[in-house]
């Protein structure tokens, strides 16, 4: 079996998974015993300046899975984020010096509340929630990730889209001086993604700003990224700077690159194979060298929440 070497991030820097999952009990106990000593850390709002800073006041969610989350190390060193290189370890290596501040989000299109917002102002009106979600990559591997985020449905409601808004389009920052991977045309920059309004307002959709109770690491899409757990990972656009409410289906990056292989919907579907590989099974990261792959579930196991969105839609054609 593997003998784990300590990761570059010292374990003491990270809240252990066990402590993390029990932190509410811990804080509650602290509040009872020590009164206000522990309270400030729990009350603090997002502390965006510090990397790996703890996020305060994170509510648990009924949408979280009770599967064991992957280690912080696995989640933050094995990434697809072509803005920082096409290798799995590239984002971890190349995003260390990235400064996700100052950061603005521009909201455009068919909505009443449009304009450019500072990131902190954009996030402030919403409650932070922990969502432990399965993540299924189109490359047939998966993880369980304890995100911290805000409900996209709440955000959309807040921005008051008009009746013309049928889709939400997202764009990643396009700045080759800060994102070295963009100096090569591995994709047509900026990275683009999109959802139907119904998908965006589904309670599962979140904009993540944290991981393991801390500010989102750069390589995972800091400061803000999309998480739609019933879709393949590439739908989870990172480093978002723009949201646009549109009438027509927006262009999406992987579909633009290879339309035959990557569709707009990109719902996890074990019955519809990628043209070059099977999607029936997946390798769970962290399961060890000798673990077998596990069966992939329809909608990544979130059918109960999302299957109704696709009633009458031919999922083989609309892959």
């Amino acid at each position, binding site marked *: 079996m*593997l*003998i*784990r*070497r300590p990761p570059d991030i010292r374990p003491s820097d990270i809240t252990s998974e066990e402590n993390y999952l029990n932190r509410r009990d811990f804080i509650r106990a602290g509040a009872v015993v020590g009164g206000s000593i522990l309270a400030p850390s729990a009350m603090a709002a997002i502390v965006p300046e510090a990397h790996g800073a703890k996020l305060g006041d994170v509510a648990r969610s009924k949408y979280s899975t009770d599967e064991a989350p*992957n280690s912080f*190390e*696995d989640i933050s*060193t*094995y990434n697809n984020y*072509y803005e920082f290189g*096409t290798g*799995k*370890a590239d984002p971890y290596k190349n995003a260390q010096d990235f400064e996700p501040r100052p950061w603005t989000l521009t909201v455009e299109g068919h909505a009443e509340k449009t304009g450019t917002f500072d990131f902190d102002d954009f996030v402030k009106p919403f409650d932070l929630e922990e969502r432990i979600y399965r993540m299924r990559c189109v*490359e047939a*591997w998966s993880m369980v990730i304890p995100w911290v985020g805000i409900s996209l449905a709440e955000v959309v409601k807040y921005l008051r889209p008009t009746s013309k808004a049928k889709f939400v389009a997202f764009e990643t920052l396009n700045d080759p001086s800060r994102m070295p991977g963009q100096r090569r045309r*591995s*994709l047509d920059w900026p990275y683009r993604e999109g959802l139907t309004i119904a998908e965006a307002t589904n309670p599962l959709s979140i904009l993540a700003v944290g991981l393991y109770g801390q500010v989102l690491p750069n390589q995972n899409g800091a400061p803000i990224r999309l998480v739609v757990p019933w879709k393949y990972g590439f739908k989870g656009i990172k480093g978002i700077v723009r949201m646009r409410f549109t009438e027509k289906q927006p262009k999406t990056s992987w579909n633009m*690159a*290879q339309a035959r292989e990557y569709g707009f919907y990109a719902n996890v579907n074990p019955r519809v194979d990628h043209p*070059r*590989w*099977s999607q*029936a*099974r997946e*390798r769970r*990261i*962290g399961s*060890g*060298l*000798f673990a*077998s*792959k596990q069966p992939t579930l329809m909608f990544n196991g979130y059918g109960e929440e999302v299957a109704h969105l696709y009633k009458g839609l031919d999922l083989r054609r609309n892959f």
Partner: protein
Amino acid sequence: MAKRLHTCTKASTCAAISKKHLDTLQQVRRIWKPVVFLVCLIPAVLVVTDAFELTGRLGANPVEEIQDRFGIWALRFIMVTLAVTPIRRLTGWNWLARFRRMFGLFTFFYVLMHFLTWLFLDQGLLLSAILEDIVERPFITIGFVALLLLSALAATSTNGMRRHLGRRWQTLHNATYVIAVLGVWHYWWQVKKDITEPLTYAVILAVLLGARLIWSWVHKKRRLRAAHQTPQRS
């Protein structure tokens, strides 16, 4: 030494081999062959030591990492094997030919390890999935065909088989070129988007195969000229 040389060189040329040449060959056999053999094993040893995190790490997806490493080394070894002849011709270092079979067999070794990793660790010996992949996924079909061809070459790589097959041996072993093309194709086809690396191998292969075409073309021309000139001189 002289006796061994008889097995691969004609007696007439054998007599003409100088003492110096013999020394070189002996040095190649006694010292350099074992050294090169051990060096060729390093990538495989590193996979094992990295698995135990003694030298490095295999990362979050060790199965993929092991498979990729064996695959890339297989490609590198077939390129090295194909580079032997052009380099020998350019530099006159004929002793290089003595390593060609070893490089070829290391290509086979790394392809086999790549295949076994896929079979045991990736697919977990799940027969239905394995057969489906070989039949339905073109890039896996290509890789599998390359493995079968390479097995045939490995099996016929001994001196005995070479003698036994005579002229047919060379024809069979020309399949190396086909295997190299299939190998690069296999790599190209499985990459998601960034084709820089497969393209690099494709260019190297094009140069190595191109060198052979140029060589045979120049050679043919020389022979033709020689045939023309001989009657004039006499």
